[in-house]
């Protein structure tokens, strides 16, 4: 694989996949420890109709309308969950399940019925994303990385995802101590003056930003896997939060890079013609890493494993 082939075809999707994986894994660590892991899942389901509606109104796929649409959908979801819970007299978990799947289904139907053929927005992309299509046409080789003209032709998803990663990482770094303390002991955190409510909300908003930014590039499947798998696998490797977050980043990068390569070239190696979905393979790889960590991780057998949940 030489630069002339790798840089225009594979570099951008691979980097985008890595940025997505890390941007999701970072807040995912705290969501998993707070037993809110499925919030990532919920967000990626709920935002679909919001993104579609935003597209139908503006006619373009761009970040701000998508984020606004996603935020609107999230508000609708919260109100709807509360309504179902009260009117239907069922518990919150069941109400969430109903609303998340219903909104996702609504988004799929809306996508099918609307004319989105001019852009990368259809049912298949909503699920699997369009990582493979992020081709850098202006690149001719590694030297293009220093060529301003060529860089201007870079697919917009890459810088968008890089910016998202910077924002998410900065949030985690700046609020590391409050996040750690309030995740471990919320009551204590409040008595030393931490505003744990707004902090928890900010964490969920960061997860939502990562999910929405990632959605366009990789679809909803990989987003779910990336919130949970790398942090869960990392927890089995260490007993220290600092190290856990570092491991989760390593696992996220490995899953994204390896997943992309295997999806693109793996079938060729075993004599098949077509490549398989990169997003699907990245999610598969992160699942395999979690499985390996569960089998061989040094801290997989912890004394107090029983009372979890």
């Amino acid at each position, binding site marked *: 694989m030489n630069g002339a082939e790798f840089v225009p075809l594979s570099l951008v999707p691979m980097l985008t996949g890595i940025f997505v994986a890390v941007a999701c894994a970072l807040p995912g660590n705290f969501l998993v*420890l707070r037993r809110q892991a499925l919030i990532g899942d919920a967000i990626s389901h709920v935002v679909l109709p919001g993104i579609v509606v935003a597209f139908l109104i503006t006619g373009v796929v761009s970040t701000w309308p998508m984020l606004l649409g996603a935020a609107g959908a999230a508000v609708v979801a919260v109100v709807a969950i509360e309504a179902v819970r009260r009117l239907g007299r069922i518990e919150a978990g069941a109400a969430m399940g109903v609303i998340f799947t219903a909104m996702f289904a609504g988004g799929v139907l809306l996508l099918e019925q609307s004319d989105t053929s001019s852009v990368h927005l259809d049912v298949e992309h909503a699920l699997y994303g369009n990582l493979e299509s992020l081709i850098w046409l202006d690149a001719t080789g590694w030297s293009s990385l220093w060529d301003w003209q060529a860089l201007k032709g870079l697919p917009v998803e890459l810088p968008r995802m890089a910016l998202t990663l910077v924002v998410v990482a900065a949030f985690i770094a700046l609020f590391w*101590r409050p996040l*750690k303390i309030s995740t471990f002991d919320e*009551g*204590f955190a409040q008595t*030393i003056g931490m505003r744990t409510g707004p902090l928890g909300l900010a964490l969920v908003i960061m997860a939502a930003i990562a999910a929405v930014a990632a959605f366009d590039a990789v679809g909803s499947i990989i987003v779910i896997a990336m919130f949970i798998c790398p942090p869960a696998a990392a927890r089995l490797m260490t*007993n*220290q939060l600092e190290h856990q977050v570092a491991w989760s980043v390593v696992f996220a990068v490995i899953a994204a890079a390896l997943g992309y390569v295997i999806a693109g070239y793996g079938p060729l190696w075993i004599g098949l013609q077509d490549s398989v979905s990169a997003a699907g393979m990245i999610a598969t790889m992160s699942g395999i890493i979690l499985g390996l960590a569960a089998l061989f991780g040094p801290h997989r057998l912890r004394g107090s494993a029983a009372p979890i949940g």
Partner: protein
Amino acid sequence: MSLDLVTTDAFASQETARQDSPLAIRGLTVSYGQKPAVFSVDMTVEAGKMTAIIGPNGAGKSTMLKAALGIIKPLAGTTTVFGKPVAQQRQKIAYVPQRASVDWDFPTRVIDVVLMGLYPKLGLLGRVRAAHREKAEDCLARVGMQDFATRQIGQLSGGQQQRVFLARALAQDAELYLLDEPFAGVDAATEKAIIAVLKSLRDAGKTVVAVHHDLSTVAEYFDNVFLINTRRIAEGSVVNTFVSRHLQDAYGGRLAGAQMDALALS
């Protein structure tokens, strides 16, 4: 005229007590759903003493403490700490929650939990210096846990976990220590170690308030007692207040005559 003067004087002295008190609660009411868990409770903690909050299960002991600190939002009531609202006095308060209220599988070490007590001094990004580490290790030594600094917290016994929580409170250098069931599910050695630390805090002029459930040790451990069963039953010194009349009021029929006798109460 004289009557007016007396009431005003009584009111004034009550107000003075409240201004000086490390923890003064007025009209605190908390409700989970329809039924009030704590109803219109007043409490005035005496400075430099150890006070036990006692009452039967579900009497609102922990709830009262959490609501006073703002962890639970009360329906009504005010709390002052040394005469000022709680929010302005955070640095003077160290709170030790129930051990079972946190997940001990959380990926962190003993020393890191104690360092959490130094957060108000460190802030968001302040560097943890050698002095901070020494301080945390010193607090661990005071509860006899100096050899466990780098252990993962999930590997500790219940009593050891409780000591770590106490060490974190010590690191806060507070004036008022509030503990929720510090002796629940701990071994006898830990109970002794904890009470020794609490008494040393009191002897250094600090104020200690603990939710307590073991009536047989109240007289031995505490100076003052506060009895609650949703409403305030009584408060005052152990000698005057920890008496069968008030205990019957607080516990109702749940405390058998034999138990009363065992406590050797007047």
